[in-house]
């Protein structure tokens, strides 16, 4: 068991001896970036962060980014809103995980005297800054954030008044008005009920009725607006959605109560209507919070497409410009480890790029002069020059975005089924109300309105409309505490019916890192010596294979290599202790024609010295989650863009029988289509941008918290704890939810069918209707509260602070 990094909680490679001084004590860290971050946080007197946080920080990358370009006027015009000597900017902060992060950023920036206001929203991962532009440059502030271990991405000025924030504020106001209003209305209603039994003079009764009207009016006219708007939208589209009966019931109950108050007869239902609005709004509020917690597409573009590019002018001088300033034909310099800003043709002899975000291919691809580089891919060996061929909306990245929106439109809507059911019920209730009214008009016109209203009130709204949302709201809240965010509410129900789970490989079942599986030294050569030489040759390289080799050799004394030459896509050659070595593909190392996937070979002048078998590191809980899913009778399958040998090896380790390799997003969509044709319901778990269209096209799309923002935007469920077994939990709780929903629906149906005939016949006295209505709703709510996390399992995302005694 290796030690964990004090800052990012990732395991420290054995042999790594870095130590950070925090609170006077040495603490182990995994890399120089983390040490710098930990010591800088300590230096600011902010070491409390480590005690307050409940999720480990992102691994700090030694900051190589150049923030100075953000001070260019052309960029400032787009990103900074100015008023007087003050600038305001909205920044998306990558790596912000929990409330302690926002506390840290707020304190760290607040210590800068020229910053007037720092507002951090950890849920939206946004930072809003107001500062004195005369005293501090934007680049200095961004650099301060990056020194903490986060990656800031300024968003364009329009994001300052974010839509999500306004939506959230309005929803909260509506909810509170409905809550306060319904409490007041209920108090007046209790007085009326008491009066109905003990006698009350009409004047006092009318006084209380008008009071009820007074408090229910803002609830109906202000808080219930979303329902009326939704119902109006549905009606205009000639559909009968859930908002239609809800809206009609609210309007009719309110209008009828108002008439009763004016005419002095009948019964008022101001308390019921406001309570009804409150309960429904509470459910929608919870749903909205979960939706906002997952990201939107704007974030995705901010992270994938770099905002800056380094343009080479005709005279050879370089200048940093915004990507939107690039034109076709420009020559751009891309640094090692940087993201390619636009699609273009490679001008340098060769390079290798990591396109895993776009295509799912986990190993770096070699590119030669004249090949096309894609915007959004990461250069793993550079620097190189490229000539811009496609910009903006024409890039492959943008066309991928369009693919996503189309796939989302074609999503099979299971929701339609339940909507049809509701629509049928609504139509039935409306018909029955009309029948009751016309029958009474013929028999006794004076009682027609009262009886019709009794049918409508007693049957339609509360219990039936609450049966599904109440259970759903409870299930979503329970899951959120377990680190599972359900973004689209109907996904949970679909997940319980899923028959097959498809996994992407890279980044989902595996981490984006390699590990050494075995070393096979040739006769007369030792494992330690082979590793030491390999590590010496790979010193300084960021290639995943190199990192894995260096980690494996961390305990050994590493000799110094000289004459290092990197051959892109093949390997490296160099001299150690006077002997020339080659390390890489077997074809490169010894000139053999036989390919050996998944291994690199170290060769000396006299031939092969050692063979290193490498494999991808599996996610810690992948095996357990797969076993649990299989136990529950689900079919498992891997669909990956990666090579067949690698996919097959992983499938074998996880005992997954079926796998498909070398799949493009279109292939994956076709695979989903084929499964659907067989009647299977599919859940797709993936994380890369290349998975985003597939996530949108699957019946349920599930993604992990560390996934690309783009796929998070397309997912129905986000596993914010980063653990795959969240799928199992979501399914288990979803099953309980379905059972509770069925009970709720059954109960409200029985109740409705039992009371409708007497109501139509005019036999339901007002007090009984009121009691029946409240009790049926209450039973539905209490029944829904039975959805709980499985016993004995502590919630993964702790909301309270747990001081880390062990670490402090």
């Amino acid at each position: 068991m290796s030690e964990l990094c004090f800052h990012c909680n990732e395991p420290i490679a054995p042999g790594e001896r870095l130590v950070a001084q925090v609170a006077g004590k040495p603490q182990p860290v995994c890399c120089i970036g983390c040490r710098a971050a930990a010591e800088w946080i300590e230096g600011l007197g902010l070491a409390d962060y480590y005690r307050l946080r409940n999720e480990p920080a992102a691994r700090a990358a030694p900051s190589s980014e150049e923030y100075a370009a953000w001070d260019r006027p052309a960029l400032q015009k787009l990103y900074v809103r100015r008023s007087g000597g003050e600038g305001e900017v909205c920044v998306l902060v990558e790596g912000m995980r929990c409330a302690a992060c926002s506390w840290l950023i707020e304190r760290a920036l607040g210590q800068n005297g020229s910053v007037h206001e720092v507002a951090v929203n950890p849920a939206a991962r946004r930072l809003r800054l107001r500062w004195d532009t005369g005293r501090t440059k934007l680049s200095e502030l961004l650099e301060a954030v990056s020194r903490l271990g986060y990656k800031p991405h300024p968003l364009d000025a329009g994001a300052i008044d974010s839509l999500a924030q306004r939506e959230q504020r309005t929803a909260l106001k509506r909810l509170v008005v409905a809550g306060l209003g319904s409490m007041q209305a209920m108090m007046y209603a209790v007085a009326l009920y008491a009066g109905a039994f003990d006698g009350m003079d009409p004047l006092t009764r009318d006084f209380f009725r008008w009071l009820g009207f007074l408090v229910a009016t803002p609830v109906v006219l202000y808080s219930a607006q979303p329902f009326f708007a939704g119902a109006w939208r549905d009606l205009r589209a000639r559909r009968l959605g859930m908002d239609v009966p809800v809206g009609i019931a609210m309007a009719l109950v309110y209008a009828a109560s108002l008439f009763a108050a004016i005419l002095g007869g009948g019964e008022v239902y101001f308390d019921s209507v406001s309570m009804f609005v409150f309960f429904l709004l509470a459910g929608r509020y919870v749903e909205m919070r979960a939706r906002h917690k997952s990201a939107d597409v704007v974030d995705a573009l901010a992270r994938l497409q770099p905002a800056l590019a380094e343009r080479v002018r005709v005279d050879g001088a370089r200048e940093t410009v915004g990507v939107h300033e690039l034109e076709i034909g420009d020559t751009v310099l891309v640094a090692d480890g940087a993201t390619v800003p636009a699609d273009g043709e490679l001008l340098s002899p060769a390079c290798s790029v990591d396109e895993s975000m776009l295509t799912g291919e986990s190993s770096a691809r070699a590119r030669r002069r004249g090949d096309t580089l894609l915007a959004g891919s990461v250069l793993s060996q550079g620097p190189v020059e490229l000539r811009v061929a496609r910009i903006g909306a024409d890039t492959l990245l943008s066309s991928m975005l369009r693919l996503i929106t189309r796939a989302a439109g074609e999503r099979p809507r299971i929701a339609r089924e339940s909507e049809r059911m509701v629509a049928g019920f609504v139509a039935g209730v409306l018909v029955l109300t009309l029948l009751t009214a016309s029958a009474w008009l013929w028999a006794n016109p004076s009682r027609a309105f009262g009886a019709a209203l009794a049918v409508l009130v007693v049957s339609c709204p509360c219990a039936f409309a609450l049966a599904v949302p109440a259970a759903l709201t409870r299930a979503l809240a329970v899951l959120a505490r377990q680190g599972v965010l359900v973004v689209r509410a109907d996904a949970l129900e679909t997940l319980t019916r899923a028959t097959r789970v498809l996994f992407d490989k890279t980044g989902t079942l595996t981490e984006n890192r390699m590990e050494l599986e075995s070393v096979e030294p040739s006769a007369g050569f030792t494992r330690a010596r082979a590793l030491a030489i390999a590590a010496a040759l790979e010193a300084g390289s960021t290639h995943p294979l190199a990192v894995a080799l260096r980690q494996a050799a961390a305990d050994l004394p590493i000799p110094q290599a000289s004459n290092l030459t990197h051959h892109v896509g093949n390997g490296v050659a160099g001299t150690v202790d006077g002997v020339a070595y080659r390390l890489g593909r077997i074809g490169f190392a010894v000139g053999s024609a036989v390919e050996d996937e998944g291994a690199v070979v170290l060769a000396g002048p006299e031939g092969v010295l050692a063979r290193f078998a490498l494999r991808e590191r599996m996610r810690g809980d992948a095996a357990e989650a797969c076993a649990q899913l299989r136990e529950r009778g689900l079919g498992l399958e891997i669909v990956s863009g990666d090579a067949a040998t690698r996919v097959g090896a992983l499938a074998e380790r996880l005992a997954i029988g079926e796998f498909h390799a070398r799949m493009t997003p279109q292939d994956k969509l076709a695979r989903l289509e084929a499964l659907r044709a067989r009647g299977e319901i599919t859940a797709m778990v993936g994380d890369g941008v290349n998975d985003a269209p597939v996530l949108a096209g699957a019946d349920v799309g599930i993604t992990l918290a560390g996934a690309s923002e783009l796929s998070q935007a397309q997912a129905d469920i986000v596993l914010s704890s980063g653990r795959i077994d969240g799928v199992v939990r979501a399914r288990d709780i979803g099953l309980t939810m379905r059972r509770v929903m069925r009970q709720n629906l059954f109960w409200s149906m029985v109740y409705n069918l039992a009371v409708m005939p007497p109501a139509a016949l005019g036999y339901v006295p007002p007090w009984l209707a009121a009691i029946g209505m409240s009790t049926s709703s209450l039973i539905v709510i209490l029944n829904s509260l039975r959805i709980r996390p499985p016993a004995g399992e502590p919630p993964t995302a702790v909301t309270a602070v747990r001081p880390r005694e062990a670490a402090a």
Partner: protein
Amino acid sequence: MNIILALIPISLVLLGLGVWAFFWAVNHAQFDDLDTPSLMPLADDPAAPPSAAPPPPGE
């Protein structure tokens, strides 16, 4: 019973005040972040930063 004629309007006025205060708070960003403030009381007042930290900016 006539007391309710005075008490109920008072309660309504208080209710109105409460709603107004809440709207003011929402519009002034008091409810935008519901996670961080719960940690605030647990944080110690910032101690004087050690000598390694940059000197406080002059006003």
